[in-house]
């Protein structure tokens, strides 16, 4: 049995201010091992900024980030990633001038010797059905395909904590369904946070949801609880109408 109560990620009073914009404002957040958490919230709620503070891409104005009892506030992104954190950013972040295979290999080779990296790369390519485009330059691919390549880079490194910022953006209906399966698979061995706008998708993968609004956590709970809350409905219906 897993110790479900063990906290692996925690923020205390985390704030990120850009001049007068309080993109993230005194956020206390905690995540238990093997959780699959969804972050939702309207555009500009601060979800991506919150992610960037977790990964060292931004240096928070105030507050603290603790990953597995290590204070990572102010650390470089490679140090955070080096703890075994896999990150997919909102804007597709890939190596355009390299092939799909080279992209994924570069991720795998960070953790494994060459032969093992090659084996893992081939496995991921097969699993994500990228076989036909393995030798295509990622810069020449469609948005959805680039998303898959980036997902491949994240999971080939076998991270124990995975942060996915809008992984299904630009994907077809069928691809979105596959992504949801994939996320559930990864969740067998990893703790995951997913930022998503697609409520159907959120409902299909997550029991526990955190709603961001104006840089702060407005409420946490199941999707049903959130969608029956009048204030949450107003934020969402207001922004999606």
């Amino acid at each position, binding site marked *: 049995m897993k110790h479900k109560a063990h906290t692996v990620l925690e923020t205390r009073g985390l704030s990120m201010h850009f001049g007068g914009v309080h993109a993230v404002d005194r956020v206390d957040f905690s995540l238990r091992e093997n959780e699959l958490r969804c972050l939702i919230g309207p555009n500009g709620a601060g979800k991506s900024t919150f992610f960037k503070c977790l990964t060292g891409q931004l240096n928070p104005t105030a507050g603290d980030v603790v990953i597995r009892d290590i204070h990572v506030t102010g650390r470089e992104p*490679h140090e955070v990633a080096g703890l075994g954190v896999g990150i997919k950013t909102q804007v597709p972040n890939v190596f355009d001038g390299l092939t799909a295979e080279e992209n994924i290999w570069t991720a795998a080779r*960070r953790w494994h010797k060459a032969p093992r990296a090659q084996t893992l790369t081939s496995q991921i390519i097969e699993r994500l059905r990228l076989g036909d485009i393995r030798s295509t330059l990622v810069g020449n691919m469609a948005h959805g395909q680039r998303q898959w390549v980036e997902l491949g880079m994240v999971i080939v490194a076998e991270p124990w904590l995975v942060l996915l910022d809008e992984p299904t953006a630009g994907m077809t209906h069928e691809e979105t369904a596959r992504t949801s399966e994939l996320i559930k698979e990864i969740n067998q061995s990893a703790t995951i946070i997913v930022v998503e706008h697609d409520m159907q998708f959120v409902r299909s993968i997550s029991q526990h949801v955190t709603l961001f609004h104006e840089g702060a956590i407005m409420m946490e709970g199941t999707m049903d609880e959130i969608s029956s809350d009048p204030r949450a409905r107003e934020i969402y219906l207001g922004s999606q109408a």
Partner: protein
Amino acid sequence: MRELREMKATWIIAALGVLFTFAAPSILELFTIITLAQVIGLAILALSLALVWGFGGILCFGQTAFFGVGAYAYVIAAVNFGGSTWAVLIAVLVAAAFAAILGYFVFYGRVSDVYLAVITLTVTLILFSLIRRTSGPEYKVGNALLGGFNGASAPPLNYPWDVSAFMFPEQVFYVAMIALILVYIFCSWLVRTHFGRVCVAIRENEDRAELLAYDTRLYKLGIFTIGAAIAGLGGIFFCIGVSRVTPDVFSLSQSALTIIWVIVGGRGTLIGPILATFALYYLTSTLGSQSVLNTNLVLGTILIIFVLGVPKGVVPAVSDWIQSRRGRKALRARERRLQRRRPSGGQNVGSTEGAE
């Protein structure tokens, strides 16, 4: 060593280089061979920038700083030691150390790409004006006079086992050629290693490389330092070839020329900039012996033509062209096979021809 097996094209080019080295005395005049030593030095410089810029994505506008530092360090060390062997080694190390220190501040200070170009160029020009002011007997390092804007004479190479046995200019040509070929093979291997591939990945997207847990500063510093060591080696052969070192190694026009060689030869290849160096050197020396056309005007025109017309450079453009021809050939062969199998479906398959 998987990398060494993948380097088929490299081995072929290296073999052609060796062939040229041995054939040179019978096809070229002695005078040309003597001049070639300095051109080889410049080609090694171009190769170093091909590595740092073309593969590492670091636009080092002042790659000649390390070239010049290598040349001056060689002269100073060779004069003081009375022999060239240690001097060569020391000069390469001094160039690398200089780059490592400069690079540490630039990369760990997260200086942006544009500023890096400006900073490296500024460093070169500072060296240019400093070294020009060193005329007079008081400016000496050990026994070596720096010589201000006239420069200092460069001691020739001697055989490693005998400091009094100097090499003839044509022997220097052999040594320089071998050095160029070995450095070329080394670079070709380096870009295929894990280190080299990470450098290319950083060139493509530094943020992504960092999110994959690579310390990009360290990789950039690494390739920058290796590139500087190679540039320093180029500087050594250049000054031995000219038998002098002058502040002109740090001049703006030398910096610009180096960039032009890489642009014309093609970023992302190693052989391109080497060939471009030889070709453009030949062109400028031919133009220099006539007075109808201004050399700088011609070089400027070539640069503009390449930036606008062949932005990838010659070698990548040619290899793209060969590959597309091959692809078309393969396509036609496949069509013929298909047609033989299904004669009735011929028209359908044939229609892809127009899409090419």
